């Protein structure tokens, strides 16, 4: 194993046990809902944050060991870390930013400046100042700066977030071809699917690593597809033991047990527990009827299809795209409803699982 990590991150409200095993030259995708700790994992790997306890080693060199009190400083880890925000150096122009890392590590140049500048389409803006760049341009400069520092391990946090689709496709291929080991955080299942060989899924308080192919096979074929959501409790009905909990602009009515207003709960909706209707339904036992837009429909098991649907975006955060629901329905239902990408439909949620809670210990339970 090239990268071997096992550590615990503590937050005021919950903790996360991380376990990563990555071979040389492989790419690990980290996938989970927003606020689940994806960025924290990268910060620990980069040496920006100290975890609560654990060990990290890279090519047998210990980076971190709380037992042996080892904590290798970021500049000695040979990493290139592209954060979610660009954090460009405003005292340098674009070229100066790109060369900053390369200047520190002159010893080995595997990746040429011209190649990166070409691939990231930065030729025309090399002399520009960071203040004059658009969001997408800043992001590309930040990506180029991380790559040109000639790292042995590349850490990318939502690298394609503010890029247009054509450029995104182009850059996904470029990143795929880079020779070093990579860890990529993304909320986009398709980026993870194309770029990575291993997938780390954040489920409640633990992580689960598997081959990306396997992860996606499970997702599509075995009926194991699910989505994870961080909800905030807004209303409590102690009589019926129901809570109204919200994620972004979407609110759910769920039996979450004993809660208080403001509690955070992570839940998992399984594709097999969700059905689809063209109109909201009344006179039914179903409490949750969520307006969604069909993103795509893929063939799953014999006679079944998997429908991916996006919920209302959170306008301020531009975070609608990672808030998907998946539904398993029969091929015939799909035909009867004539479901096409872009259709506005309603998702009916029958059940869910609670993954993490605020106070009690971790517990996975299925509630109808």
């Amino acid at each position, binding site marked *: 194993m090239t990268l071997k990590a096992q550590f615990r991150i503590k937050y005021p409200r919950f903790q996360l046990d991380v376990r990563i095993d990555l071979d040389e030259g492989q790419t690990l995708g980290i996938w989970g809902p927003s606020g689940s700790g994806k960025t924290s994992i990268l910060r620990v790997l980069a040496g920006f944050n100290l975890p609560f306890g654990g060990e990290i080693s890279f090519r047998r060199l210990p980076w971190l060991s709380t037992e042996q009190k080892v904590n290798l400083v970021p*500049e000695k880890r*040979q990493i*290139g*870390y592209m*954060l979610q925000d660009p*954090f460009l*150096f405003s005292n340098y122009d674009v070229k100066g930013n790109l060369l*900053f*890392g390369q200047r*520190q590590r002159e010893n080995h140049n595997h990746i040429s400046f011209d190649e990166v500048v070409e691939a990231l389409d930065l030729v025309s803006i090399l002399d520009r100042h960071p203040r004059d760049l658009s969001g997408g341009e800043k992001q590309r400069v930040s990506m180029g700066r991380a790559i040109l520092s000639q790292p042995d391990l590349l850490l990318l946090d939502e690298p394609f977030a503010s890029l247009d689709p054509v450029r995104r496709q182009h850059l996904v291929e470029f990143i795929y071809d880079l020779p070093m080991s990579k860890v990529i955080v993304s909320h986009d299942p398709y980026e993870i699917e194309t770029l990575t060989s291993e997938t780390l899924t954040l489920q409640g308080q633990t992580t689960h690593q598997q081959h990306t192919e396997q992860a996606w096979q499970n997702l599509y074929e075995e009926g194991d597809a699910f989505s994870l959501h961080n909800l905030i409790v807004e209303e409590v009905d102690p009589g019926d033991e129901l809570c109204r909990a919200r994620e972004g602009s979407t609110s759910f009515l769920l039996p979450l047990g004993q809660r208080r207003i403001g509690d955070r709960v992570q839940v998992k909706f399984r594709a097999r527990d969700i059905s689809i209707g063209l109109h909201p339904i009344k006179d039914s036992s179903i409490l949750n009827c969520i307006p969604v837009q069909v993103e795509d429909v893929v063939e799953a098991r014999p006679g079944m299809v998997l429908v991916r649907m996006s919920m209302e975006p959170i306008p301020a955060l531009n975070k609608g795209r990672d808030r998907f629901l998946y539904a398993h329905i029969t091929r015939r239902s799909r035909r009867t409803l004539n479901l096409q990408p872009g259709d506005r439909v309603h998702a009916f949620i029958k059940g869910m699982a609670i993954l993490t809670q605020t106070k009690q210990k971790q517990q996975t339970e299925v509630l109808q």
Partner: protein
Amino acid sequence: MWEPFALTLKLAVVTVVLLLILATPLAWWLSQTKRRWKPVLESLVGLPLVLPPTVLGFYLLLLLGPKGWIGSFWVDWTGESLTFSFTGLVLASLVYSLPFAVQPLQSSFEALGSTHYLVARSLGAKPLKAFLKVVCPMSLRGFVTAGVLCFAHTLGEFGVVLMVGGNIPGKTRVLSIAIYDHVESFEYHQAHMLSIVLLVVSFLMLMTIYATNRNIGRFR
């Protein structure tokens, strides 16, 4: 008549240079630390802001005097007294103007945050290099404010100088004291000349801060 002016200028320049060198690491440490006794240090640094200059000058006089901790050491070492000397004046000014250097620097470091510094280090830069090549240039506004404020503050100091430096022409007789002297002996003309210079210089200095900050603001 212009001797106090030259002396004051010299004092201010020396103080600013030394203070920026001393205050930068202190301000950076204060901006980064999460230690519990950070407020203690911050209060100590800020003390000259609220203390009457005469109180500060009195304690400095005791400390720097031939029988004080620092003063006696200095006498042993150089054979000269720190009080009523230019060196003593510089030391007193350093203490007196310390908050004017530390606070603008600290707040500009805090505004910048530590992420740029960490990114520079993740790109392979050693801590000092990351600090000098990224943090300092990006906190330029703080340095300009700190420098100008210290300079102006040192130009106008009176109480501390009077206590520690006295009124020795060519050695410790700075502008504000010279003005006071002229007024005491009804030499209003001379007092006017010196005062107007001080007033214009102070105004120009403040304008420099505001104009530069506006420009740097645009530069960001």
